[in-house]
Structures are given as C-alpha cells and as structure tokens.
C-alpha cells in the first residue's frame, strides 16, 4: 500500500541545513514576513489565517485566526507572542523535529503574528531537555537578527520585533498555557482558571498570543500560497496537514505528515509499514496522557479533531503509539496514570487526589487484587475528575482509563475476575507454564534464579508456581518455545 505524505509543516525538515539561514531564504524564507510587512494590513493577515481554517496543533484545535484576532482587538501598549515548545507528551517529538530541522519557519511565523496582533516581543518556551533544538533556535535568531530580519525597523518597514528563548525544566503541566506563562514569569508552574484567556490577559497580564510550534510552522506557507491553497488539503472542518510521531509496534518509527482525513490504517499499515513480527494490531494511542486508545475496528476512521474525540480520544499534539497483542491495555492505562499522577501540580484537589486514587485502583487490578466493583469506581471517579479539575491536565487525565475500559472491557474483566493478564505483561499476574514441547534440556532449570523448575534430563520439566518470582528468565532462555506465559 502506498500513501503519499504531504509536507507543509515539515517542508524544510531534512531538506535545508537548519544552521544556515541562506538555505531557508533560498526556499522562499522570510518572504511571507516581508509580504505581510509591505503588502498586507494587520487585518488582512488575520483574515488569511482565519480563512485558511488553520487550527491549533498543540492539542485542542482552536481556530488560530480567531485567537490572533482576539489578541489584535485587545487594547494594550505591550503585547506578546508566545511559542509553546514544551512538548511533554510521552513518545511525541514533532515539535522537536520542526525546531531542529527548520527553526526559521517558527521564528518567521512569530514575527508575522507579532505584526498582526501588534506585539514587539516574542518568547519561545522550549524545554531544556531539547539541547539541539535550543542550539539551532539560538543560531537561527542570531543569523536572522544579524540580517535585520528581527530587531528594530525590520527591512525598513518600521516594524520592530525581538525574539527571546525561555527554558522549561520539563514539567508536563507547564505545557498548559497559563502554567507556562507563570513559569516564564518565574512563578510556580501552576494553571489558573480561564477565562480570562491569554489573548486578553496573558504574559505579565498583557494580551498574549500563544500557539504551538507546528501551528506556527504552517503560517509562512499559508501567507505565501493563500488560504484556498491551504484548504486544498485536509477536510472541511480540519484543513491542512498534521504531523504525527508514529512510535511503538510499527516497522517504520518516525514522523509522518499527512492531510487531515487520512485514515489510521493508511498511516499505520501504509506509511509506518505495519506491525513487526507478524503480530496483530491492538490499538493506537493518540493524544498522549489526555487521549485514548483506538481499537482495530476504527482503523478506517478518517482522522481529524472531531472524529478522534468521537472515538473517545483526541488529536493532542500528534503522538501516535501503536500497540500489538502483547500490550496489556490495563497496563497502558496505568502507565499514563502514573505519568499524570506524578505530573499533577497539586493545585486542585480532583487532580491531585483523584488521579492518585485512580492509580491505586489500577495498581490493585494489575497486582491481582482487583474486584469487579473497581471498574465502576474507575468510571465514576474518572468522570468526576474530568468535570471538576481546574485545568486541561486533570480534565483529560482519566481519558486513557475511560477509553480502554470502553473498548477493552474484556481485558479488565480478565484481570479482576480471573486475576489473569491476557497479554501476559502484568508481571504479578503472569504465569509461566512448560508445555509438551519441552525436550528436557535442563537449560531453564539451570538458569532459574530461585531454582523452582524441576525435571529429569530428557523429561518434561515443570515450574513450582508457589515459588516462581515471574522473572521470565526461563521463558527467554528456552530454545524450543516450550514455555508459554499468560
């Protein structure tokens, strides 16, 4: 199967030398900014972004043009343009790749936004764990400033714009825009209630436009080619393309940029080359810790913001973790809850305490002490946290549980009713058995660290379950495939 990618946000990634501004300029770079400064009014710029239908790529999919318009209308002598390069979703690296491969695209877009909303300063909030992205951004800012593409009176237009980096220390909650702004101001990375939205009350309480890296990366091409051109890709409600970081059980791990409306199947079986080792696809996790797991029966759903929400997941920033039959869905839910429980800032009770309780319940289930009522309590508590948490972190943290409960209830039931993990990954539930394929070579018995395998040479061996510590050494040492787990 052959599915072609369409590269808009990634158009220069892997093509130009990101440390040489001449490459970027040769590809038409900074023409979009110049076009705005010399040939378009602020309202015209906003209008083109609105008409393009570009929606935020950082998670929620809010229309970018409307956000810019709100910031433009806000009355203030000082405004800011912020770039969210915090990228905290486990397994996601779209934004890192854009910054490492094409930093100028983001910088140019921020200057365009600054012109459109009337801001003179841009701040990029980038995680310090991305040293190469930081380095390339620094080089890019330096080279562009040297050429007079940033700074005072850009290209003689009268418009001035400066760029600054701010390093995040890797807290997931700091990707949430109000926490991010607190963090830039030197405060605790804690969110606040919205409204007021950043477009009105943002950084240092000034009107601020905040967009994600990939959102910005789309802007210069939209300005250059027009809104209709952009709408030629993707769907009616979700125009353009989306970058996904496809990882997990696929043959071709990497970045994929496809028009919105492409199916999961085209991405996973087509571009990413399918599942390795002849295993069966089980689920695709999208939306990171805020998202959910999409099962095989929905592989043919065209992906856009709305369809993913309808499936109980979400677009998120573009992480796509593919799982096969060896992955336990209860274990996956527990992985995400461990993450969110740890990353909760603790400001609001539902998130601070609720996620902890969810995690405890999940741990009970994966340890083999779960009861059927636990499933109902996961559902009830999950719904309550979603309804009452202060920010997007808590409002979405139960999603990995709720979606796996919805699509993979059987697996939860096997855990609580039979204390069995069908995928064989929950260590405390796993049982190793020796089958008739055993030839009595004694390798397992000799390698067992607790000597709980017995049997005569050339005779079938057996495992003393009461003493087995489920380390899996016998399973991996057996050369005859005679040991099974489950």
């Amino acid at each position, binding site marked *: 199967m052959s599915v072609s990618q369409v590269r808009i946000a990634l158009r220069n990634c*892997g093509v130009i030398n990101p*440390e040489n501004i001449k490459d970027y300029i040769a590809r038409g770079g900074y023409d979009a900014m110049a076009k705005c400064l010399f040939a378009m009014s602020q309202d015209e710029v906003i209008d083109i972004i609105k008409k393009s239908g570009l929606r935020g790529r950082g998670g929620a999919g809010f229309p970018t043009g409307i956000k810019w318009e709100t910031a433009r209308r806000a009355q203030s002598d000082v405004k800011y343009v912020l770039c969210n390069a915090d990228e905290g979703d486990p397994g996601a690296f779209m934004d*890192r790749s854009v910054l*490492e*491969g094409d930093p100028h695209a983001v910088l140019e877009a921020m200057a365009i936004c600054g012109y459109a909303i009337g801001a003179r300063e841009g701040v990029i909030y980038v995680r310090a764990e991305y040293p190469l992205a930081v380095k390339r951004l620094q080089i890019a800012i330096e080279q562009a400033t040297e050429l*007079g593409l940033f700074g005072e009176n850009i290209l*003689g237009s009268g418009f001035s714009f400066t760029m600054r980096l701010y390093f995040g220390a890797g807290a997931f909650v700091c990707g949430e825009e109000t926490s991010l702004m607190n963090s830039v101001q030197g405060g605790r990375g804690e969110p606040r209630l919205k409204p007021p939205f950043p477009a009105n009350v943002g950084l240092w309480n000034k009107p601020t436009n905040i967009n994600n890296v990939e959102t910005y990366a789309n802007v210069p091409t939209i300005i250059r080619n027009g809104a209709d051109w952009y709408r030629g890709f993707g769907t009616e409600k979700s125009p353009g393309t989306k970058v996904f970081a496809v990882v997990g059980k696929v043959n071709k791990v990497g970045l994929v940029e496809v028009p919105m409306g492409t199916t999961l199947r085209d991405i996973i079986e087509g571009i990413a080359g399918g599942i390795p080792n002849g295993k069966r696809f089980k689920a695709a996790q999208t939306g990171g810790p805020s998202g959910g797991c999409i099962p095989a029966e929905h592989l043919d759903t065209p992906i856009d913001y709305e369809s993913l929400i309808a499936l109980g997941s979400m677009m998120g920033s573009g992480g796509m973790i593919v799982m096969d039959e060896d992955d336990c869905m209860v274990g996956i839910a527990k992985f995400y809850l461990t993450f969110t429980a740890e990353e909760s800032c603790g400001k609001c009770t539902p998130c601070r305490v609720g996620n902890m309780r969810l995690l405890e319940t999940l741990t009970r289930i994966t340890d083999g002490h779960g009861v059927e009522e636990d499933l109902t309590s996961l559902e009830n508590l999950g719904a309550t946290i979603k309804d009452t948490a202060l920010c997007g972190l808590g409002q979405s943290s139960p999603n990995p549980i709720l979606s796996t409960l919805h699509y993979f209830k059987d697996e939860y039931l096997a855990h609580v009713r039979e204390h069995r993990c069908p995928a064989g990954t929950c260590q405390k539930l796993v049982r190793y058995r020796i089958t008739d394929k055993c030839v009595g070579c004694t390798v397992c018995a000799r390698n067992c660290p607790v000597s709980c395998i017995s049997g005569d040479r050339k005779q079938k061996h057996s495992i003393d379950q009461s003493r087995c510590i489920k380390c899996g050494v016998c399973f991996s040492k057996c050369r005859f495939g005679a040991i099974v787990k489950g």
Partner: protein
Amino acid sequence: MKLSSWEALKQYREDTKDEVSLLNPESTKIILAVGEATCGIAAGSKKIAAVLQEESKKMGLDNVEIIPTGCYGCCYAEPMVEVRIPGQAPVHYGYVNEEAAKKIIAEHIVKGIIVDKNVLRVEVTST
C-alpha cells in the same frame, strides 16, 4: 549586514544562490546532506558525516560538501544521507553504516553507480 528592504532580501537570495546546500542545477557542487536531528545523531550520523568527509578527501574530491540537515521523518532508517548531484534526481540513503558511507563515495560519487542496497524510497509531496 542588515537588509533594509524587501528588495534587499530578494537580492540577498539571488546573491547567495551558490552558497546554499539545496540541489542547484547550475552548480558543480555535490551536496551530501546527513540527517543530524536528535534521531540521526543518536543513530551515529556524526560519525557517518566524518567518514564521508574523510573518504571524499581520500578520493581527492574537492567539490563535495557535507551538511547537517534535520529529520526527514524516517527515524527508523537513520543514519540517513541524501546525495544531491546537479542535474540528477536526489537519492535518499538509509541505514548508512561506515561501510555504506564508504560505498556512497566510492561508487555513487566517484563512479555514478547508485548503492541500491541502501536506497530509501519515501513518498513525499513537498510544498
């Protein structure tokens, strides 16, 4: 140097045409673009870039320029090298180890024979 107008930016683009690392039919320069995003570097692309440099020198090639580039999306196949020879279609190579890097220079650059084993075909519509 500060550019003082849109015209000046366009002029700068024109003036630096020969200094860029994109495929340029009018140039005699051969570009080897090595994937040096985090994925490439983790797979050992810095070493591959050094090998390419060394081998070109050994072969006395003075029109070869090795540049770093970002992630082409094929993290699975890193280290990647793209060969850009003026007048020819660019060739993407994947899984480039030291041996393959030496072959790219000795076979592709010197003799014009593409190293089939490492060719990577990625369907991408660029904009």
